[in-house]
């Protein structure tokens, strides 16, 4: 019964942040108002899908063998910053002051959403700690119960016994805010004021 137009609209509506109205507007824009934009979008989407993948080392977005951060020889390989998402990593990069490497967990422990250790990029973290000359791990994970439990878990199950300096970033942001809302100054002071975990 559904027309192609309705199918497109439903498909767009499933994307994050789009409601019924905005999905309709987008569908009309692509099909009727700017058909050229549709061609371009299809090409760009196909290209991105074929070339972008998760960096096998850190989980960042990546187009070659490893991502730009991992490939950059000037980055400090003695510091590893653990973040929840690529969004967080990109926000830290935009803010600027951090010059070490990253590790993206792709989430945090969330039993009520069925996210356990197997669903997170934790095996990769152990492997990298074995290979890299890491001296310090910064846990830049959200300040809520699930974020804190994720930090505990990483400390107990992965970092214990390695003799690393482990610190947590305190963002000093109202709860609900995270790295994506932090500006350069906030992040710099958070990095400078990072506290050792016991």
């Amino acid at each position: 019964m559904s027309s192609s137009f309705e199918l497109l609209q439903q498909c767009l509506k499933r994307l994050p942040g789009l409601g019924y109205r905005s999905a309709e507007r987008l569908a009309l824009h692509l099909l009727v108002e700017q058909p050229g934009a549709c061609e371009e979008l299809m090409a760009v989407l196909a290209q991105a899908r074929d070339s972008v993948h998760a960096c096998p080392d850190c989980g960042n977005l990546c187009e070659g063998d490893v991502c730009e951060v991992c490939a950059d020889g000037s980055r400090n390989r003695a510091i590893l910053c653990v973040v929840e998402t690529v969004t967080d990593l990109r926000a830290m990069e935009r803010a600027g002051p951090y010059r070490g490497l990253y590790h993206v967990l792709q989430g945090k422990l969330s039993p009520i959403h069925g996210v356990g250790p197997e669903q997170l990029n934790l095996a990769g973290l152990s492997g990298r700690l074995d290979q890299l000359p890491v001296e310090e791990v910064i846990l830049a994970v959200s300040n809520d119960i699930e974020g804190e439990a994720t930090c505990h878990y990483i400390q107990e199950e992965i970092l214990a016994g390695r003799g690393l300096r482990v610190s947590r970033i305190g963002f000093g942001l109202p709860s609900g805010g995270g790295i994506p809302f932090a500006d350069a100054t906030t992040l710099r002071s958070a990095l400078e004021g990072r506290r050792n975990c016991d």
Partner: protein
Amino acid sequence: MRFNRLRAANFRNFTLLESAFPEGAQFICGRNGQGKTNLLEALSLVTSLRSFRTSEIPALIRWESQPRECTLVYEIEHEQLGETVLEVRLRPGSKQVSMDGNPVRKLGDILGIFPTITFSSQDIQILRGSPGLRRRMMDLMFVVMDPRYYTVLTRYHQALKARNALLKQRGSAAQRRPFEDLLVREGWTLMEMRRRLLEVFNPHFQSAYSGISGVEEEPVLQYQPSVNADAAGAYEDVFVSQLRRDQESGTTNRGPHRDDLEFRLQEHGAREFASEGQQRGLVLALRMGMVGWYRQRGGTPPVILADDIVGELDAGRRQGFWRMLGGESQIIATGTVFPREDDFHNWIHWTMEEGRVSRDREESS
């Protein structure tokens, strides 16, 4: 603070509830089902964004409303903030608040800034009903008395949900441990806060009781924690000792989420041993004690909302009640008949019919 005006759209079964409040004590009369209780409920929501009648947001939204949401707009005169317009929008599963047009990002920040105290004829259930009602009462009072309480309570319940989910999923000990550590830490903090806040509150409760009843009967609100422990370590021991039972039942059996509170009078449990009149006096003292707590704290005096309570009291307690309310707070009361034995307030009389309030021409003084 005082309410100047309320406009509630799609609240409960009313398309629109609207009322303006001039200077003076307001008494709203009307038969049952005309919206008196709903009006007071809407006013009371401003304090902790929770209803005194239900914990279910969907129950507050008019069933036929499309989209399913209700909007409450309060015009408030506040000692510190001046004239403030607060807008609360409730949808199933979400609460949004804006103050003078600016969204409030962290709801915890406005808890207790707009204090109201509600006296309800249903309050007697707090004494007689299940422990859940007493915990809810305790939480609603304590978030106002200590702003940190809300954070600890929320964190405890998040950790509890996570741990219960892991028990049901039969998660490993390594998976449970980080959540259990947090649960024990927040749980112990919560218990200590409850104990301390009850100590602060009991003197207010006691003087309110004797003020209303005119007798010294040593009323006490006694904390009955689910886990009897005098130190964090002892609490953790009890918690650990329950593990097998918790695993079998797939839920956490002991902890502050199972706490209770006992009303005691002359060293006996009031639920079993107190008379009807004494029980009514105790629950009135619970609310009046909060009025006393606010007075001692200073700052913004709370608005007093009294929903159909005087009818059930004997003449002596009625007198005591009106006297204890004093004159510094705005009072908005409801009932089926206008108050007769109150020598302490000059009431403005309203009649409510089908959600509409109209001012009576003839007023007693």
